């Protein structure tokens, strides 16, 4: 079962639990497991919101009295809601007010929106790998300043500096990771120095060019 197939039946799984295959996927997939955990947490928190917005018990008393006066409710048959300040039990769901229904509807809407827009959290390493492999490196503020200094230069020169700075940043990033992995690795340390020297050279050349 794929993550997409799993997430298509997610509302059913949240409501009534999944079958064996779905449970198996839930155990093996950290991303889907985290998604289900988050959604269950949201659902639990939403339930707690309902009693906080329940009408005051006096409202229930007045309703009961009105119903009794109109003969719609036999005397002595009082709902527990009217006399109790405790949290509602499942049987009380039948006596929800329109406000309760509105809140429930709002919760369902929010829940559906979360399901549609939810993006599972990737593990940190996976996210880093994605950044380095698929997304173009972003220039830092200093780099952008250098590029802005090159605004008077030919487009090919500007592009060369921009590509060079991105390359230098990627080099520094790779070298730093290598040094972190093995701080005793002299070759990695040399390459980190070399990466910084490359960037220094680009800064020097760009500065000299802009001064001209």
């Amino acid at each position, binding site marked *: 079962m794929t993550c997409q197939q799993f997430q298509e039946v997610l509302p059913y799984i949240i409501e009534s639990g999944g079958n064996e295959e779905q449970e198996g996927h839930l155990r093996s997939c950290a991303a889907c497991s985290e998604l289900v955990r988050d959604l269950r947490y949201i659902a639990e928190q939403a339930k707690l919101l309902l009693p906080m917005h329940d009408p005051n018990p006096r409202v229930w008393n007045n309703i009961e009295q009105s119903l009794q006066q109109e003969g719609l409710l036999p005397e002595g048959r009082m709902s527990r809601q009217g006399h109790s300040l405790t949290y509602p039990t499942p049987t009380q769901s039948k006596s929800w007010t329109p406000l309760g229904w509105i809140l429930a509807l709002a919760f369902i809407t929010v829940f559906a929106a979360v399901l549609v827009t939810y993006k599972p959290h990737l593990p940190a390493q996976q996210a880093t790998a994605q950044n380095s492999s698929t997304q173009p490196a972003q220039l830092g503020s200093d780099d952008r300043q250098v590029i802005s200094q090159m605004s008077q*230069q030919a487009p090919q*020169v500007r592009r*060369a500096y921009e*590509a060079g700075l991105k390359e230098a940043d990627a*080099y520094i990033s*790779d070298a730093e990771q290598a040094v972190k992995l093995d701080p005793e690795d002299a070759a990695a340390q*040399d390459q980190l120095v070399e990466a910084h*020297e490359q960037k220094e050279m680009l800064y020097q050349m760009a500065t000299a060019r802009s001064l*001209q």
Partner: protein
Amino acid sequence: MTESRVPLRSCENISLARVAALPVVFVCAMALSGFAAEPQGQAEANRKEARLDIAPGGSINVINNDGSVTLKSGTGNQVLVAYTLHSNKVEVDQDSTPDKRRIEIRSHALPQQSPNSDEAKVDLEVTVPAGTAITVSTATAPINADGISGDITLSSDTGKITVSGVGRSHLNVRSVAAPVALSQVSLGYVHVTSSGGAVQMTDVTGPKVNVATGSGNITYKGDCSGVGDYLMTTHSGDIDVTLPETASVDLNAHSASGSVQNDFPLQAKKHPVFVPKSGSSFAGTSHSGSSSVELRSFSGKIRVKKQ
């Protein structure tokens, strides 16, 4: 009869047409030659020369962003500067200090002028006495240096840098994306740094040869002689080294996430600096291992082969 006269009439017509066309062709040819001669004449008019005295051990600084820069070896105590302007929107300044120890040659746009990329070009040729320190900086202009010596610093953003026939010199080359080609550089201290430009070396030797690139490839063909230290480093660029069987090297190669391939006969070291890992590093010596050769890359491929 009729049939035989038709082609005759056609021939007559063609001949007449040719005769009539001759003056037109002549006029056109003259006009074309005139048009062709005009830029040449303009180029001749824009070509200028100057001779500047320089003190022994003096230095020259050349700045020419677009066009070309050619450096040649000369004699005596004079620097010959010859240049061709591609338009009258630019000029070349030549300044020297009173003691003649420093000369600056710089092309620039005239005030109130905004030359386009073609109009801004200046082809500059500088003949320098041996041993003169020279620094050249360009943006897109290629740099060609042939047969010079001394302290040589060449930098270009995108213009190709070509150096040949340089001996006993300090050669410092810097490039953003410009390709670099060095050949017949002997007994030199060579330092090349390039971000994205490829570096190609043929018969480059010296006590210190240090080449570093980011994404540019490094190619070396030669014997790494001179009892020198050769260090070639890239981030993602490949390194290709071709050595003759007679090369006497102590070679280490390591690629962090790329690959290595060795087709050169090396003997395993008795005391290796690192433990070679198949596919990502190797080390060994050839003959007496007189020169140290270090090849390092992060993600590039390293290949060493026999010439």
